[in-house]
């Protein structure tokens, strides 16, 4: 187990370097010069541009910029500063992450509770009315694009019914985040429900279920322990990768509900060619992905003792 974890942690290093390098190279390959754009339509003289480039270290070759950036990041946890406003990237991320995290946690909770809940109901009543209703409902959610769902929710609940505020205030409260969290978690909720349903419906016919029932175990225990535990493996896998997706995929949702989180920073950094901000962001997202996927892999052993790690 310990060796397995150590090996996985070591594997993270090349993945980490590779992704950051890729992002760095991609931002630099985009047409458009961040320094030029600082001065807009009317421009600045070559001397000012050169002075600015030098000040920001953008006059160095790309590989050097990447090297110094990674060195500062790893040695001093210094993610550099934004090109335009000179704010440290750590501060920018520190502003944006809490709200996205808040939104992500809420969305994940909704996804978890309702997704698995609906899945259990559907799985246990496979082929019956409740199951069919759930299948139709999830199909509906899967087929509606996120931004359409966002606007529909806003339209109905904020404007027509007046139950919620249309936008998240600059100092957000949990209650304001429910609507965007539903939108953000909606799609995954549908997948979780369907995965859980199928997995449970299949396992209901498994040998160990028959044995458990034959042993005369109470129904609660048969379903709660024997069935659930075995049916959760694909669901947990999906949930694990979804944590990362929620963090990175909030772009549209944050935009619709005026949330100043990671989504906005990503979009803004791309359009402004803010290489260092993007790399910083992606680095953190990559770490989130890597850590959750490791945790999920370790969780397998808990769920199914047959899975062992050398």
């Amino acid at each position, binding site marked *: 187990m310990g060796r397995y974890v150590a090996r996985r942690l070591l594997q993270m290093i090349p993945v980490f370097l590779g992704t950051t390098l890729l992002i760095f190279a991609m931002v630099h390959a985009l047409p458009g010069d*961040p320094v030029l754009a600082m001065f*807009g339509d009317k421009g600045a003289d*070559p*001397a000012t541009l050169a002075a600015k480039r030098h000040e920001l270290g953008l006059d160095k070759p790309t590989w050097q910029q990447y090297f110094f950036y990674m060195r500062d990041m790893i040695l001093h946890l210094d993610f550099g500063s934004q090109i335009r406003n000179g704010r440290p990237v750590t501060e920018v991320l520190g502003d944006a992450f809490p709200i996205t995290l808040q939104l992500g946690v809420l969305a994940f909770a909704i996804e978890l509770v309702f997704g698995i809940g609906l899945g259990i109901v559907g799985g246990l009543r496979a082929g019956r009315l409740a199951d069919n209703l759930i299948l139709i409902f999830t199909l509906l959610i899967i087929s509606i694009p996120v931004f359409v769902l966002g606007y529909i929710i806003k339209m109905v609940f*904020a404007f027509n019914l007046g139950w919620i*505020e249309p936008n998240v205030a600059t100092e957000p409260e949990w209650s304001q985040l429910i609507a965007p969290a539903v939108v953000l978690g909606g799609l995954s909720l549908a997948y979780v429900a369907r995965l859980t349903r199928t997995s449970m419906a299949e396992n209901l016919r498994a040998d160990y279920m028959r044995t458990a029932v034959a042993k005369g175990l109470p129904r609660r225990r048969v379903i709660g322990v024997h069935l659930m535990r075995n049916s959760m493996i694909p669901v947990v896998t999906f949930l694990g990768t979804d944590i990362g997706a929620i963090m990175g995929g909030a772009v549209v949702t944050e935009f619709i509900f005026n949330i100043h989180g990671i989504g906005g920073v990503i979009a803004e950094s791309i*359009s402004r060619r803010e290489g260092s901000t993007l790399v910083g962001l992606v680095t953190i997202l990559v770490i989130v992905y890597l850590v959750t996927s490791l945790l999920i892999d370790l969780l397998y052993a808990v769920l199914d003792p047959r899975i062992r790690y050398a």
Partner: protein
Amino acid sequence: MRGAKSAKWVTGAIIVALAATACGGGKSGDSGSDAKAVDPNGIFSIELGEPEKPLLTGDTMESNGSAVMAGLFSTLVDYKADGSLTMVNAESVTTTDSKTWTVKLKPGWTFHDGTPVTSKSYVDAWNWNASLKNAQGLASWFADIKGYDKVHPDAEGAKQTADKLEGLKVVDENTFTIELTKSVPYFGHKLAYIVFAPLPDSFYKLDAKTRGQAPVGNGPYKFKSWDHKKKIEITRYDGYKGPNKAKNGGVVFKNYTTLEAAYEDLKSGNVDVLRQIAPKDLPVYRQDLGDRAVDQAYSAIQTIAVAFYADQWKKPKQVDPRVIQGLSMAIDRATITKTVLNGTREPATGWVAKGVLGFQEDGGNGVTKYDPAKAKELIKAGGGVPGNKISIQYNADGGHKEWVDAVCNSIQQATSVQCVGDGKPDFQADLTARKTKQVKSLYRSGWVLDYPVNANFISDLFRTGAGGNQGDFSNKELDAKIAKADSAKTLDESVKAYQAIEKDLKNYMPSIPLWYYKVNAGFSEKVSGVAYGQDGDPILTGVEVKK
């Protein structure tokens, strides 16, 4: 004039670069009339995007930062709606030859930290802003002043040889003189711009990181806090001595990711003043808001500029202006502004925008009239469009596609010249293509006033080598006329000379004027007296908050 405000509406992630969006200041007129009692200490909120850069007088070019700076700083002068000057921090700005200017300050003014505003506060601030080592985006505004080439050489790799502008001299506590390299009749108008604001001594002691995070100014409001990407707060400065004292207790600039969100919040009473309505809401906002809807012209113009360096216009011979005249007359401006642009623009009749000193009706001399038959005739007479095909470059993230397509359709139908839009993914890519002279045919361009004189719309755009002249337009005849207008003895004569030049521009066709911008905005029931300046920004000090 190089380096004025640009890229308006950088709201959160989405860059909707309208055009070159310069800020002049322009506070004038307020219409505070309402029955409800007014709370003189009331605080109101305005929709705003996160300022792109630190709040420095020498580097704040885009409209988000400018809106805040306009409240924090007062400059020497300001201008009224007709383009004429009023004194703010200056007692008088005088000159006899338009070359040497004497500024007298009103005594007794203080910065928000309590230190007095003196002539030295101005001279030091200008020297700092002009200096190359500080790399301020607006430095070129000081180019008229003697010694600028030493403080800020333009060429790449050049080193500055002086720290101070030779032309600036402190006479006494409240007087200083400005010597220019040549006469500039409208220099007084330039002084209204934020880059000419004074700075307190404490500014120079700050390091680069904190500088611009909490500006100390001399304006009607003092800085309170800046919660990045959330809000900026400023409060009334009670020690303010200027004529434009704030009629409210302060302003909260709230950050929105989209204009749509801001509009929704306006309707539900969460924000008081908007600076612009999103395209989606334009068809309904007049109904929604009633007399709280704002629909007002401001001094900006959209044009189609010609990339004169492109092979199409240069080889085998320079394009005949009649061809461009023809293209101009093939555009049905009235219909496009009404339908595609929802009445948010007004067809242009010349190159100079409204609200500017020297604006004249039909400055384009009929070249903006829609006349398909004449258009065809002119293009034929001029030898035709090379290749019979043109393209208009634009940035696809700025909401320009719709009207570019409409303009193309109009040209194609009227003249059978093939026209396509050449969309660049975003403003950055569009700018880079322009800077590196990669534009193949025509490109979308625009100009918002830097200072309210018609010279700003002609000299700064069409003079050979001017900062705004990105299409490499060059004509010796026109250059001579501009030089003559610039050397006029008085402002009046200069303005008149430029008016004549504008009427004459038809024969050169450096660009195709399309339409003037309008402010389409609105405000809540909580406030009154909301007016917008020539730069399109709301005038903060005049807003009254109801109890």
